[in-house]
């Protein structure tokens, strides 16, 4: 077990190191090293996963740990925790990573930093696998930041473009804001529990009711949970830190598929999944509200955009919001299943968009159209993934989304005061179908809008279409419903017994599965909503019966709000960025004028005078008097003594006799 895990984990790291140092000198610039490493990781992940699946044991668990920091009163361990969630994540990560690696061979062909690109991809895979493997909050924070770094490097991969390097910085800084919250949450837990950071021990600690304390009228447990969730808000691009994800589309498209659709952004969802029992009902309610609001918010923003990748980016934010909402309302299995299904169909969508961009050399959907004949494989893959994300029956998105909506609905029926969550979720379902079909219609159907784009378009090479086909197969619903294997291995953990007074008594549905009745209503509602969305989209963008332009004109103010993304970026620009820059300028000014000129330069007279006098002292007292003085006086003495040596032999003899006489006199006396 351990050997396999280490292989899964460290092979991508080895590939990264090889690529970084030797990449340029290897055959084919080393793409086979990364692909091979990730392929091996994928195979071993599958072996472990299917072994576990064969056991049908939802309580499967395997742990190991090593001492890391070992002090008398403080111990930090580095441990691995493998359970069904981990293994599912491992398969998702390594599969998508492998497909993206293969796809990139075609997509990135001829790029001058080809080997570095693969190095970064492998590095990301290593970090992400580490993130799901570790068993404590401290270690997950490390890998949390490492995937952030990998994301930064890959978004800014074409760093000579200012927009790309700016987007990379924006992504890094925005997620860092969330990470501060997460770090504070970890600190609260660390001090409250005296250093217990392992998930299992922490849950036990909370279950024993030892986690106490209040902050501003809320229990400290809730505060810690919400702060931890801030990390997820940043990483999973939830409102209000969603602004980085659309800009992150400046990176190469396969990167968007891997990091900004399937895996890294799911890290936030994974964190919430992993820490699920830690969150108090209050914290879960917060998560549900953030999630459902983000889902609706991002879906509306996707309606008006014409950049094919940006639409997908907003769609990703929206779907991540769904997952968060699902976890928040207690639909644990649904949230995690949506993570898995979304990874497949959203990666597929991004890779399809990459294929389209590769062929059309533009990201603007207004210049595309009619690409269906030119790129049949890409078209069919996009269509399947779109049907899946829209929640059409028999596709994977339907399975998970139906469960999510059922969870939201049953939560809303139990807690009517929080019905807004469910309403947002259902509206989002309709919007999703609308904007996704808008994308398909604008890109693949209708008359070619730009003859130049159309004539250049061609189907992508096999390395790019093969991943599309595999992901398309995985977008079918039966893969996830067959024999109910998913529900068999992923089960909602029992909620901890929170102390009375901590939980909001009215939140009833958190503990148990959604009702069958709400399932039926959900199925009908979601199919109806998806159908309406698709139909409207058909009318607008295929038939042209309804004109988008007229509607935009009629609802000008609303349209402008959507085009400008609710002015969130502008809001941050004015409230955060500008004041910060002004503060920075002031600080720089203060630093220059006061610190530098007054304080630092103020020492100049003192120090220079001191230096001058000490130099003088050194010259005169030490050098001339002591050092040279000794030599001079000895030389002078020598000159004096030398005068005795006259060279007159008789003088010497007289002196010798005189000495003899003196000695004799002394002896006689």
């Amino acid at each position: 077990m351990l050997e396999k895990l280490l292989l899964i984990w460290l092979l991508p790291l080895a590939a990264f190191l090889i690529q970084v140092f030797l990449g340029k000198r290897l055959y084919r610039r080393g793409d086979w090293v990364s692909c091979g490493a990730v392929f091996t990781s994928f195979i071993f992940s599958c072996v472990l996963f299917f072994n576990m699946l064969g056991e049908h044991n939802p309580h499967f668990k395997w742990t190991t740990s090593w001492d890391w920091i070992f002090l008398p009163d403080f111990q930090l361990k580095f441990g691995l925790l493998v359970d069904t969630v981990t293994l599912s994540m491992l398969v998702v990560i390594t599969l998508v990573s492998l497909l993206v690696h293969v796809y990139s061979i075609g997509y990135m062909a001829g790029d001058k930093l080809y080997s570095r690109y693969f190095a970064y991809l492998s590095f990301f895979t290593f970090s992400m696998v580490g993130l799901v493997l570790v068993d404590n909050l401290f270690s997950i924070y490390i890998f949390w930041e490492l995937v952030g770094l990998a994301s930064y490097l890959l978004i800014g991969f074409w760093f000579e473009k200012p927009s790309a390097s700016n987007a990379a910085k924006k992504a890094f800084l925005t997620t860092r804001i969330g990470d501060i919250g997460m770090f504070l949450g970890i600190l609260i837990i660390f001090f409250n529990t005296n250093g217990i950071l392992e998930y299992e021990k922490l849950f036990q600690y909370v279950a024993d009711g030892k986690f106490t304390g209040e902050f501003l009228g809320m229990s400290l447990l809730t505060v810690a949970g919400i702060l931890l969730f801030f990390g997820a808000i940043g990483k999973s691009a939830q409102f209000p830190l969603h602004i980085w994800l659309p800009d992150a589309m400046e990176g190469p498209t396969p990167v968007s598929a891997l990091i900004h659709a399937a895996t890294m952004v799911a890290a936030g969802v994974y964190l919430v999944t992993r820490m699920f029992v830690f969150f108090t009902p209050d914290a879960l309610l917060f998560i549900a509200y953030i999630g459902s609001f983000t889902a609706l918010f991002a879906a509306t923003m996707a309606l008006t955009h014409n950049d094919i990748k940006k639409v997908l980016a907003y769609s990703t934010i929206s779907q991540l919001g769904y997952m968060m909402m699902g976890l928040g309302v207690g639909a644990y299995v649904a949230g995690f299943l949506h993570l898995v299904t979304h990874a497949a169909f959203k990666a597929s969508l991004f890779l399809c968009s990459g294929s389209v961009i590769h062929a059309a050399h533009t990201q603007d959907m207004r210049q595309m159209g009619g690409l269906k004949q030119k790129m049949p494989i890409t078209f069919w893959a996009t269509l399947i993934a779109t049907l899946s994300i829209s929640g059409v029956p028999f596709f994977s998105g339907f399975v998970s989304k139906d469960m999510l909506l059922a969870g939201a609905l049953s939560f809303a029926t139990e807690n009517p005061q929080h019905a807004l969550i469910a309403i947002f979720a259902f509206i989002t379902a309709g919007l999703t179908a609308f904007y996704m079909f808008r994308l398909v219609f604008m890109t693949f159907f209708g008359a070619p809008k730009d003859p130049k784009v159309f004539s250049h378009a061609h189907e992508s090479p096999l390395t790019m279409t093969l991943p599309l086909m595999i992901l398309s197969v995985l977008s079918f619903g039966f893969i996830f419903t067959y024999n109910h294997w998913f529900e068999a291995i992923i089960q909602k953990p029992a909620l901890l017994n929170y102390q009375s007074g901590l939980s909001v008594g009215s939140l009833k549905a958190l503990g148990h599965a959604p009702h069958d009745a709400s399932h039926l209503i959900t199925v009908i509602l979601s199919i109806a909503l998806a159908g309406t969305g698709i139909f409207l989209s058909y009318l607008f963008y295929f038939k042209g019966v309804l004109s988008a332009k007229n509607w935009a004109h009629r609802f000008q103010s609303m349209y402008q709000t959507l085009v400008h993304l609710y002015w969130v970026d502008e809001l941050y620009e004015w409230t955060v960025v500008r004041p910060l820059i002004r503060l920075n300028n002031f600080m720089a000014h203060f630093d220059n004028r006061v610190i530098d000129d007054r304080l630092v330069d103020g020492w100049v007279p003192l120090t220079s005078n001191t230096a001058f006098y000490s130099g003088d002292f050194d010259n005169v007292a030490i050098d001339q008097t002591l050092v040279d003085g000794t030599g001079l006086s000895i030389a002078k003495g020598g000159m004096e003594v030398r005068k005795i040596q006259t060279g007159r032999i008789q003088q010497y003899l007289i002196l010798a006799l005189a000495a003899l006489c003196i000695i004799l006199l002394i002896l006689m006396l």
Partner: protein
Amino acid sequence: MMTIGLFHYLTVSSILFALGIIAILSRRNAIGILLGIELVMNAAGINFVAFSRYVASDLSGQIFSLFIIVIAASEVVVALAILLRIYMNRQTIDIEDVGEMKC
């Protein structure tokens, strides 16, 4: 009639020694200094013989004086050879003029 004893020998040798020292100190000619040295040595030889006869009553003193004579002769040989070389180099044996060895 006064008998000649140790005192007389010592007196003679003292006179010889003094004359020798005076010669060494006062002569400027190197040959003169050499002669003075010979006088000092002979004074020492007389002392040895006199002490041998009156005090020690064995022959070791006389044998010593024989050694002194031989040493004096060989010393004169070496010294005269040096003086000869000096004279051939600078046509003088005045010791005032030979002062290179002083620094």
